[in-house]
């Protein structure tokens, strides 16, 4: 079935690329045809040129934002998984702590970011804390759900064989939770980036180094809209790369057995 495989690849990668090219072309044409000034909407080629010209500045900001995002994601995964393990130990613990996890989730980060920035001296650490708070919840709730979603028959079987709590956790609960965890991870990866950007908007400049959000803020003030677009593009690209990477990790871990990652063959 070579044909259907080629068709599959084309629709998977070709179609979105075609849409992208079409939209960019339309954008380029509209900006040129209607002579839109570049301080309102810059053309895609101008944005690309700015990206190249300002690369030294933008790449440093990109690295900064990436560092914050990845640190926050790592912290969210470690903390989130640890919390999920505590939650499934017993219902009373979950019932008494889960509302606070929700509280953390529903409180807008912009509302608590100033406090965290006051409390924590190091701006980097403050930003990581903010982004972690934003990214934490999907990992906690999905992993908790996953650790609980064990097949009733397998649970009986483990009981019949006199499995210890630890054996049941390692051999049954953790593997059952993996697909849920990865679904949560994918959401959290996006949220960590959003958290890193939003927190930096609130924090403003972090001294000598600054991230992409600060570049956007500054470019906006200076009406340097091409650079603003370039920074925006880098944020979007980072988001796409993160999402793809987490999807790949999930595929690598689950490809042998889980329906979500099994390709039709």
């Amino acid at each position, binding site marked *: 079935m070579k044909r259907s495989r080629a068709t599959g690849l084309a629709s998977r990668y070709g179609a979105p690329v075609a849409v992208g090219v079409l939209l960019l072309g339309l954008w380029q044409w509209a900006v040129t045809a209607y002579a839109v000034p570049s301080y309102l909407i810059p053309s895609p080629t101008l944005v690309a040129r700015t990206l190249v010209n300002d690369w030294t500045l933008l790449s440093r900001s990109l690295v900064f934002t990436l560092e914050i995002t990845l640190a926050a994601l790592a912290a969210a995964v470690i903390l989130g998984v640890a919390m999920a393990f505590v939650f499934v130990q017993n219902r009373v613990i979950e019932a008494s702590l889960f509302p606070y996890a929700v509280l953390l989730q529903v409180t807008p980060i912009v509302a608590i970011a100033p406090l965290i920035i006051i409390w924590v001296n190091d701006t980097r650490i403050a930003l990581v804390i903010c982004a972690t708070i934003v990214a934490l919840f999907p990992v906690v709730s999905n992993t908790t759900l996953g650790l609980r979603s064990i097949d009733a028959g*397998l649970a*009986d*079987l483990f009981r019949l*064989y006199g499995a210890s709590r630890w054996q049941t956790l390692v*051999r049954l609960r953790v593997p059952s939770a993996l697909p849920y965890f990865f679904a949560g991870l994918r959401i959290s990866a996006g949220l960590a980036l959003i958290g890193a950007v939003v927190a930096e908007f609130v924090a403003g400049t972090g001294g000598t180094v600054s991230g992409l959000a600060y570049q956007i803020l500054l470019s906006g003030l200076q009406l340097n809209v091409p650079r603003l677009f370039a920074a925006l593009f880098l944020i979007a690209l980072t988001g796409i790369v993160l999402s793809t990477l987490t999807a790949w990790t999930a595929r690598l871990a689950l490809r042998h*057995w889980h329906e979500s990652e099994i390709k039709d063959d």
Partner: protein
Amino acid sequence: MTVIQIASADKVFDNGVRALEPISLAVREGELATLIGPSGCGKSTLLRLIAGLVSPSSGSVRLWPDAQSNDEKRRRLDFVFQSPTLMAWSDVEKNVRLPLDLAGVGRTEASRRAGRALMLVGLQDFRHAYPRQLSGGMQMRASIARALVTDPSLLLMDEPFGALDEITRARLDDELTALWTKQALTILFVTHSVYEAVFLSTRVLVMSARPGRIFAEVAIGETHPRGAAFRASEAFARHCARLSELLAAASKAPVGAKDAA
């Protein structure tokens, strides 16, 4: 020797539903006894009661009641569930090895015994396949291999072949009786198929529903192995007809008509 001794055990669930009337039942060593009855008659509950997965509301369930402590190693119970109940994330061998791994049996020893169990069910070429790559019948064989790997002396089977097609089911029934004659097993088997019950059993226990109780008992005397000839025989047809009648009566029996049988 008595393997299962149930003395007026009943089960009322927490929500007040009475799943089982007080039941008394003895299964002796080497029997292949079948529980048959309409759905919801408590067959599965009875089996879970025997396995110790649920405890009786009153009465008692005892396994090997008069065994001496020195033949302890011969007393092992295993369970085959309605669905294959395999771990999707582990290959066939790891699934079959599970009871040994949980009991702390060494790696090589566990692997060797898993290989032998897989041989018994004809899955030796699928050690490293994942459950999703197997057909329903093969998944069920893997499940049976997992039960056999502990070398049990009592096997409880809860409608293990209920979800399979007729041809696969007949073949697995043949294989099961062959295993049973070879392995000195006692089997208590739940089914809703009259044909399967007659083909397999030395004794059929007919249950009636809501609340579940044992309604009638039929001995099937033909010698094992029975094979295709038995399936086509007049005796087989006669047993099936008799059992169907009893089953129909059991399904109709009003609550409390205990003495009607």
